[in-house]
C-alpha cells in the first residue's frame, strides 16, 4: 500500500512539475481563399458539367514540429454564390517538401441542408518573402454521395480550384 501511494505521488509530482519537451511544438497555419469549379451529376441533361458554387475557404492546419511531413487541417467552407451555404472539412495533409502537399478529406456542408463526401487534392504554395506568408493554389476533386441536399440517390462530383493566402502562425 505504501509503495503504491509513493508511486502515485511521484507520478503526480512529475506530471504537474515537469515541463513539456521543448522539441514538441505545435506548428499551425491559416489562411483565406476563394474557390470555384465544375460540378457534375447524372442529373445533368445538357452538357457534362455545371459551374460549382463559388466559395470562400478558410483553412487552418496543425502539425508537430517533430514530424512536419504530416498534419491535420480544418477548413471552413462558405458558399456565397449563386446560393449560400456553410460547411466544414477535416483533412489529413501530407507535405512533400515545403511548397507542395497533398490531402484527403471529408467535406461536409451543414447548412441550410447537408452534404457529406470525400475529397482529394494537392496544394501548391508560392512563398512571398521570408515572412511565412504564401500564396496557395489548391485543385481538388470531391465525390458527395450523402446528404439531404441531394435530390434522391445521386452522387455529386466537384472539381474545384481555390486560391488564396496562407501564413504560418
Amino acid at each position, binding site marked *: 500500500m505504501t509503495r503504491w501511494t509513493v508511486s502515485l505521488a511521484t507520478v503526480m509530482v512529475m506530471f504537474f512539475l515537469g515541463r513539456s519537451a521543448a522539441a514538441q511544438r505545435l506548428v499551425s497555419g491559416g489562411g483565406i481563399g476563394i474557390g470555384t469549379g465544375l460540378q457534375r451529376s447524372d442529373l445533368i441533361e445538357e452538357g457534362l458539367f*455545371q459551374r460549382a458554387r463559388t466559395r470562400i475557404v478558410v483553412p487552418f492546419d496543425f502539425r508537430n514540429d517533430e514530424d512536419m511531413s504530416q498534419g491535420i487541417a480544418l477548413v471552413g467552407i462558405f458558399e*456565397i454564390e449563386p*446560393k449560400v451555404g456553410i460547411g466544414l472539412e477535416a483533412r489529413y495533409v501530407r507535405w512533400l517538401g515545403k511548397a507542395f502537399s497533398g490531402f484527403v478529406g471529408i467535406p461536409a456542408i451543414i447548412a441550410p441542408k447537408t452534404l457529406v463526401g470525400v475529397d482529394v487534392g494537392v496544394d501548391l504554395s508560392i512563398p512571398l518573402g521570408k515572412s511565412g506568408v504564401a500564396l496557395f493554389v489548391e485543385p481538388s476533386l470531391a465525390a458527395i454521395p450523402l446528404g*439531404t441536399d441531394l435530390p434522391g440517390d445521386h452522387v455529386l462530383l466537384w472539381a474545384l480550384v481555390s486560391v488564396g493566402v496562407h501564413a504560418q502562425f
Partner: protein
Amino acid sequence: MRNSERTPRRVFSIVAALTTAAAALAGCGTYGDPCLRTTDCGSGFVCVEGKCQIDVGDIPIDAALGDAPGTSDVPRVNDVVSEGVGRDASEEGNPLADSAGADTTPDSAGDGDGAPTSSLDAPRDAAQADTPSEADARAAADTGSGNGDAAGDDVGGDADSASVKDATVDALDAAG
C-alpha cells in the same frame, strides 16, 4: 479614438455589402431551372430529376377539395327533399295539400313553369331553392308533412296560403 469607433462600422458596412451582393447574385431557382442540389431551387420548389419543380407538399390541394361545399351536399339535399316532399304530397289525402301540391290544379304551386305541377315538380323546385342549406330542406320536408299549406310555402318557394286559396277557388270554378 475616432478611428477605433469607425472600424466596427466599416466592417459592418463591408459585411452588409457583401451579404447584399451575395443575395443579389443568388439565382432564383424557379420552375424548370436546372438543379443538382435541393437548395439550388428557390422557396416553394424542389429539385426533381435535375429540374426545379413546384413543391406540391406546400399547396393545400386536399384541403381545397374537401372544402367544396356543393359537390357532396347537393345530392343529399335533393334526395331528402324528393323523398320527404314527394311522400307527403302524394300519400296524405288532405285535399288542401292536393290542391297546393298540385295533383288537381295546374301549376297551383306557382312555380311558374306553366305546366301542371306534379309531386315530382315540388321537390325539384325545393332543391333549386334550398340547395345551399340542408337544414332548410329538412325543415321544409318536415313542415310539409304537416299540411299542404306549409308544404306549398316551403317547397314551392312562392306558393303562400293566399295562392293556395286562389288555386282552390280556381279548381272549384273549373270543376263547377
